[in-house]
């Protein structure tokens, strides 16, 4: 049994007096594909953002790739380099071309040469099927294209795990599938992924485990067949009822 790449043990987090994460115990094995779902405000983003310490937790331990995340850690960037993140609103750098967006990480952080960075960037642009847009600025691309560039940007750092926070929620409906297809291909390549998403089709197709959160807690987690066929928790049943209706 390999060591988990992510372990959260008894994690608690507060925003001021608001208890946002309640006793979270959660781990991810290398190569695992996890889908996290739950109602809005249940703490999904908060949880995923503690994994690269965009958010701080106050209690419990989080270990990512053998490094514990805590307030006094020396080099949080060592962890962040190995943890790719894709945001709901893409957050591409608007003043840089697609290629520059992709090359920045490897060159500025990993110390890659310009030539190597360019090769890596083109490799991943081809993987997300938009090499022809390399010279454009983010503002000239559609939402779906921007999100695929954002995925490629994270991949250029050759991360050990990828975090997705509702990557399709800000997209027009006809663009959702191109991003999901990219994510599915990534999963098939064996990437370790933690995805917050409400795309249950994606969950059924690629997830090894689906996690349901509510009110800051992990209520239930199971492999997709069991998760969808025989949910135990009442709130999960209601949630699935709402989300699968459509």
């Amino acid at each position, binding site marked *: 049994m390999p060591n988990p790449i992510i372990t959260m043990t008894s994690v608690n987090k507060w925003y001021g007096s608001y208890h946002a994460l309640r006793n979270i115990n959660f781990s991810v094995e290398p190569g695992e594909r996890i889908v996290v779902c739950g109602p809005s405000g249940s703490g999904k983003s908060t949880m995923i953002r503690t994994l690269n310490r965009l958010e701080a937790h106050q209690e419990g331990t989080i270990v990512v790739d053998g490094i514990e995340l805590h307030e006094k850690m020396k080099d949080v960037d060592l962890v962040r380099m190995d943890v790719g*993140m894709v945001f709901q609103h893409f957050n591409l*750098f608007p003043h840089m071309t697609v290629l520059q967006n992709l090359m920045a990480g490897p060159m500025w952080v990993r110390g890659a040469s310009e030539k190597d960075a360019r090769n890596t960037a083109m490799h991943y642009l081809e993987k997300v099927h938009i090499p022809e847009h390399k010279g454009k600025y983010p503002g000239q691309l559609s939402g779906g294209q921007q999100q695929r560039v954002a995925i490629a940007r994270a991949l250029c750092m050759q991360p050990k795990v990828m975090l997705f926070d509702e990557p399709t929620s800000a997209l027009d409906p006809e663009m959702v599938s191109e991003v999901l297809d990219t994510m599915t291909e990534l999963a098939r390549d064996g990437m370790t992924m933690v995805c917050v998403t409400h795309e249950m089709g994606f969950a059924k197709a690629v997830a090894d485990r689906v996690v349901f959160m509510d009110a800051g807690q992990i209520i239930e987690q199971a492999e997709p067949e069991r998760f969808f066929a025989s949910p135990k928790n009442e709130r999960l049943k209601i949630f699935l009822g709402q989300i699968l209706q459509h």
Partner: protein
Amino acid sequence: MLYVDTVVAERLVHRPRFIVAMVVVVSLALLTFNLNDTVFAEILRPIIGAPDQAGWFGRLSIAFILSILFMLNIVVIGFLQFKLQLLIVWSELLLLFLFFFYGFELDFDFIRTKFWFLVTQGVFTTLYVSMVSIVLASIVALFGAVAKLSSNGFAYAIASFYTSLFRGVPLLMQVYLIYLGLPQLGYVIDAVPAGILALVLCYGAYMTEIFRGGIQSVSKGQWEASRALGFKFGLTMRRIILPQAIPLIIPSTGNQFIAMLKDSSLVSVIGVWELMFLARTAGSKDFRHMEMLITAALIYWALSIILELIQSRIERHYRTQSH
């Protein structure tokens, strides 16, 4: 540009009622002056007879004819394209403005003899002082802005004290305090560095707020994406945040530069040989104050116009670059 409506209303200046009303108003306004002893009366001699005997009939006729000409001018301009309107209205206002100076009976020969001296000596120092100051003030402002945005209480306290003090004390006093005060501490400072220091500290304080606003208006998502890639604070600031903040900062910074150009005249009080200082000294020797002050004023204005043009160039550059 403001939002331009796609339905064009009839131009105000082409509405008969407006034209008539304006003719009346302008005529009444002109009636308050005695125009019978001006050149207009001479020109209208065929109609009103000898100006000194024309009386109210003369005044009324002149006022009426002038106001008709005035409105005619406005109506005609109303028909023109934007650019032509701009050109004509600017020229007319400028002519009026110069006409106002013309009334001072200035000694133009005197101006001519001193003009190049003012330009070569004064303008050079003024530009040099302002440019060095704006560059240094920008650097101060950058640090000030970062400090004001930081969660470090020490940095925030220093920065907010600094901006509060230097925005709150008149620049003229800062100039004096630095020039006269520093030597008290045993540090003798020349007039030019003292002037530059005062301008840097004062404008650095104003620009701190401008920079802070610019940095703050870059979305939080940009910080998150950058930090999530493993970029450290300094790298994020330099390569991700500032390049996006600078286009937002430039219009106000240009404003500050123009303001500084004129405020640099305050350092003349400690004997820096800039434009204002030379204008005052050159004029006072020959009791020709007005000539030199007006010349200096026009030179300041010309410099500001050049800066305005440069500023709009830069703004256009950033507008076309961002998509």
